[in-house]
């Protein structure tokens, strides 16, 4: 026999359980419905070129993504990340690079003497390596552990060059915080959550640079 107190307890417990089940159902339905149809945008574009929708839909997790087209290189990525140095790094899209001798991302403006001397470099941490390829071309590569994600080189390359230097979140370093502390201070709302199957948004002359299978799998 139930007494009155137990009866009320059981009744309330049952209704809480029913409520939780309903909530779970609604959330799971919402979660399953995720994908391009629900306006789930990868960066700025919900259906950018080469978007493998099936691949994106297969992933049930999300990661943060930086849209380089929205980025204004304010420098907050370098200071606001919970990681130190920041998980945002400069990525070099070699396919876009002009291999210029006078690199707008490497040299400070008004630099005449194109040497690797520290006073000529835009990068505050000497994270860009300049290597001679053949006359008159130079290869520039990013030393990831040195890069602090300040975006100075990105600004320089975007202003004077092809824009082959782009800021991206390095997902090997990113903690995938529930609330990205850079995202909430980003002035241009360049951060968004995207399917984990498509974590990078690198642009190559208007098109999206697709990940190279050899480099991503390793």
């Amino acid at each position, binding site marked *: 026999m139930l007494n009155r107190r137990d009866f009320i*307890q059981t009744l309330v*417990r049952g209704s*809480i*359980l029913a409520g*939780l089940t309903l*909530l*779970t159902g609604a*959330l*799971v339905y*919402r*979660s399953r419905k*995720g994908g391009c149809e*629900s306006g*789930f945008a990868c960066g700025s574009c919900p259906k950018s070129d080469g978007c493998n929708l099936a691949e994106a839909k297969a992933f*049930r997790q999300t990661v943060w993504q930086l849209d*380089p*087209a929205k980025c*204004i290189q*304010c420098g907050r990525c370098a200071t606001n990340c*919970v990681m*130190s140095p920041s998980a945002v790094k400069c990525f*070099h*899209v070699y396919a*876009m*690079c*002009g*291999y*210029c*001798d*006078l690199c*707008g991302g490497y040299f400070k*403006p008004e630099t005449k003497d194109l040497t690797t001397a520290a006073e000529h470099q835009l990068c505050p941490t000497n994270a860009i390596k300049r290597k001679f*390829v*053949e006359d*008159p*071309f130079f*290869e520039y*590569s990013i030393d990831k552990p040195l890069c602090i994600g300040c975006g100075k080189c990105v600004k320089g390359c*975007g*202003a*004077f060059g*092809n*824009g082959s230097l782009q800021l991206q979140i390095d*997902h090997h*370093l*990113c*903690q995938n*915080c*529930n*609330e990205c502390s850079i995202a*909430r201070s980003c*002035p*241009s709302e360049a951060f968004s*959550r995207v399917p*984990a199957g498509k974590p990078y948004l*690198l642009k190559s*002359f*208007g098109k999206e640079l697709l990940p*190279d299978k050899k*480099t991503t799998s390793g």
Partner: protein
Amino acid sequence: MKERMKKLCWILLFTLVVVNGFAVQRFPKPEFETAYLQPQTHQPPPRAELLAVTDVVVLFLALAVTTWLVLKRRSRMGVFFMSLASLAYFGFYRQGCVCSIGAIQNVTLALFDHSFFIPLTVIAFFILPLIFTLFFGRTFCAGVCPFGALQDLVAFRPVKLGSRLNAVLGMIPYVYLGLAVLYAATGTDFIICRYDPFVGIFRFGASFGMFIFTGTLLLSGIFIARPYCRFLCPYGVLLNRTSRFSRKHLTITPAACIQCRLCENSCPYDAIDIPVTGKNPMDKQRRMRNLIFIILLVPVLVGIGGWTGARLHETLAGVNPKVRLASLVMHPESYAGMAEPFEITAFRSAGKPVAQLYAEASSVLGQFYTGGWILGGFLGLVFGLVIAGRMLARYNPDYVPNKGNCFSCGRCVDYCPVKATTNPPS
């Protein structure tokens, strides 16, 4: 050749110095004559999906093991080591993300914003501890939550706060929960994550302000045991309310209470209800008067709270990025003499019409007006119910853990001299 390229570069540089375009092909891709191989852009993959499933499995196992330790083994030692293991996994290995406390915001945003995607992992982190609590009490707090484990480690000299102070401070989590839901529902901010005091410890780094906050919490935690859990944790509110209706719960004594009072001071969280026997019963007339007073008081408090919340909606909305940007655009004099804020620069370069921004900001303000009424009303209701709870005394013959406030840590169990001869009473 080299000189010519250099000259060309300089000319281009000066012509393009004012143009800040994105990804324009100003220089053609070189055709290399040597055997130079163009490197690929390395894109490190994110954490494997399978590991997210592992997190949920670990959460479930941790909840199950802790519940077994609390209810069947009645072992404080076991719960202690379980909480250390959880601290190591969810705290230091998973770096405190995603946690059940923060999942409140994801769930809220997913319910209000249809474009927000909520992964199944986050749903599991939100629901599983609630279901366990509904059946077995707050075993999540005892041995699974890394925040609780961390604070449990420093509770060296707990002092009793008294029921009045406990009730007043116990209101804070409701305010925090209300604000967190309001800010998450309006897509403004995840304040639980932003003001998460312990995540800095797990990640070995925090801002100065958060460092001071964490230090204060941990130092005060020496005397006020589990200050975050008792007087801040918004998920604790949900667990507290759910646990009151739990099917089973930790009992101090495995058999019948002999009223020896040995456990009276064992609880560092003031969560043991002392017996309220029929010695000093309230007369029926006074009880009826109290009940009528409460029934009249609660709607008044809800009304006052709602009205105040609605009055404060502009202040509350001030932290919303859209509202802030709109007010910056509307009042350029607010940053006169200073460098132009990055927000304004970004807004200009995005080329969004000002009218659209204002429309969005005013829609957010409208949401905050409604939200202010609901939040204020909710807080008024909670305040009224707290007063009601204090005015209506309940009959309680034995020393029992308060099912709402008890974290099921199992400390009191060791103080009870009664040994189980048979199974504990159901």
